[in-house]
């Protein structure tokens, strides 16, 4: 385990008993590999370890723990802090004067359509809007899921026009407390589809724009999030498929660089498999 390896690196070095500039280097290297293996972006790892080093060297050396344990605690606390542990848990941005509009976006297969149903299940009083007019069976998939969670289903007003369908859905959806918009998966490098997303956001004027991202996403997670964020102001991140064994380092990269709050995680395929994000728990997961 990481702690065992760290115990080794500290044991082999002079000055055992105190964290110093010299003995911390091998320990930082161990953490670097652990974080890269956890899919944290390599630039974020660099910057993150700078913070860890400052805190570790500046910290009071406790008599009752080994340098390895103390070092791990510094890393873990810094992970949790970066993920939002010292801030109040992020809340849903509610609209004071009408339906709270939530727009979901993300790469193909990330879990958006399922997430739409999960949010409807969590929040209640929701209508689900089908704006994926491309993928075969996507509208039907959302319809079936809406039924499962007892949410109203708003089919596309025009199955060949996303913009018009978005506009019509706003009119149809006025009476609901939450209006959740599912969109087609898209590559952040697909200019045409990113432009479509910008226009849909302009029409819907969402209270929340949620990037739905697979927890197993690798180094590109940061690029994906930053690019989406540049085009539409993301207000939340939802990490899906956390019921797997992917460490989820993407969460750290995105939070560290963009500050976008992680509000929910998907923990399974069923509509009730959604939880709010816990920074400490996730810090443990990333560290492995």
């Amino acid at each position, binding site marked *: 385990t990481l702690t065992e390896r760290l115990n080794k690196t500290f044991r082999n070095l002079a000055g055992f008993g105190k964290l110093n500039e010299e003995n911390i280097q091998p320990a930082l290297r161990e953490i670097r590999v652990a974080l890269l293996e956890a899919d944290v*972006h390599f630039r974020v790892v660099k910057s993150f370890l700078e913070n860890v080093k400052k805190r570790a060297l500046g910290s009071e050396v406790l008599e009752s723990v080994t340098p390895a344990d103390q070092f791990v605690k510094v890393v873990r606390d810094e992970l949790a802090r970066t993920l939002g542990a010292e801030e109040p848990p992020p809340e849903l941005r509610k609209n004071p004067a009408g339906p709270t509009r939530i727009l979901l976006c993300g790469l*193909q297969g990330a879990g958006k359509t399922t997430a739409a149903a999960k949010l409807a299940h969590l929040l209640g009083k929701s209508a689900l809007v089908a704006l994926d007019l491309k993928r075969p069976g996507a509208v039907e998939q959302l319809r079936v899921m809406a039924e499962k969670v007892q949410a109203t289903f708003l089919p596309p007003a025009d199955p060949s026009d996303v913009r018009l369908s978005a506009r019509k859905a706003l009119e149809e959806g006025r009476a609901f407390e939450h209006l959740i918009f599912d969109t087609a998966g898209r*590559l952040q490098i697909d200019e045409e589809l990113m432009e479509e997303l910008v226009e849909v956001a302009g029409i819907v004027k969402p209270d929340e724009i949620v990037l739905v991202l*697979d927890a197993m996403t690798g*180094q590109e997670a940061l690029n994906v999030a930053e690019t989406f964020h540049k085009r539409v102001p993301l207000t939340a991140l939802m990490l899906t*498929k956390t019921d797997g*064994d992917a460490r989820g380092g993407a969460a750290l990269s995105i939070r560290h660089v963009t500050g976008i709050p992680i509000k929910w995680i998907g923990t399974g*395929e069923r509509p009730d498999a959604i939880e709010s994000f816990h920074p400490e728990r996730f810090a443990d997961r990333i560290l492995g």
Partner: protein
Amino acid sequence: AVGRGLFDDAAAEQIEEALIEADIGPEIALRLVEDVREWVRSAGGGVTAETVREKIEMDIAEILRGSGSGRSEEIPPNGNHSSEQPRVTILVGVNGSGKTTTAAKLAAQAAARGSRVLLGAADTFRAAAIDQLRVWAERIGCEFVAQDQGADPAAVAFDAVQAGKSRGCDEVFIDTAGRLHTQTNLMAELEKVIRVLGKIKPPDHCFLTLDATTGRNGLQQITTFSRSLPVDGLIVTKLDGSARAGVVVEAVERLKIPVRYVGVGETVEDLMPFDPEAFARELVR
């Protein structure tokens, strides 16, 4: 991006970071760079960064070739006469990795070559999964077999192969539900599908789809799926995105499972045979 000029420590670090950024993993990245540094030393130094980069590309392509990746197998245009018909291919992989779309692509491309094709909808779990595959079958104009939502996937798979036989099909492609490799009961479900197929025709191919955006977890996925299922090929999907699927380098090296195809888009044309050199070039850029 890797710069010009002589190969030095700065260039080495740049290359290592490029490899890590491509999801190749910190240990393989370090090893590849260390190996090439040794190669530069034994050459007496004075090598350009560009030459080093090409050397690493070759090393990676060699790893990818070593298992048979990139040798696109002969796909008989009008039926497989070297083995009993139909040829049966099953698609497996984690949720959202592109199984259904890839099954459609494989079916369409086989049909375009003149094969009589059947698509089997053995994802009986996910909402509208059967509808999704049915739409593809209609677009392609090929045979289609499905049962009710919630039916036993093994029964549907069996049904599909049986129909393939009786309808004189050359190829049967079976789509399955997404599942995480950590879900042991669902992995057991797939093992049962394979076992049941064994009663009529054991699959000629079991392709594992891997989303190119997947990070280091891809290694666990490939390891676990191939441990209990007869996975004989990987299909890297969504390679038209910005992710480069570097994780397959370690997977191929360790497990010797070849990459057969890459998915490069959402239409049936968007499936290409795997090209190790082109793939390696993208990893080191």
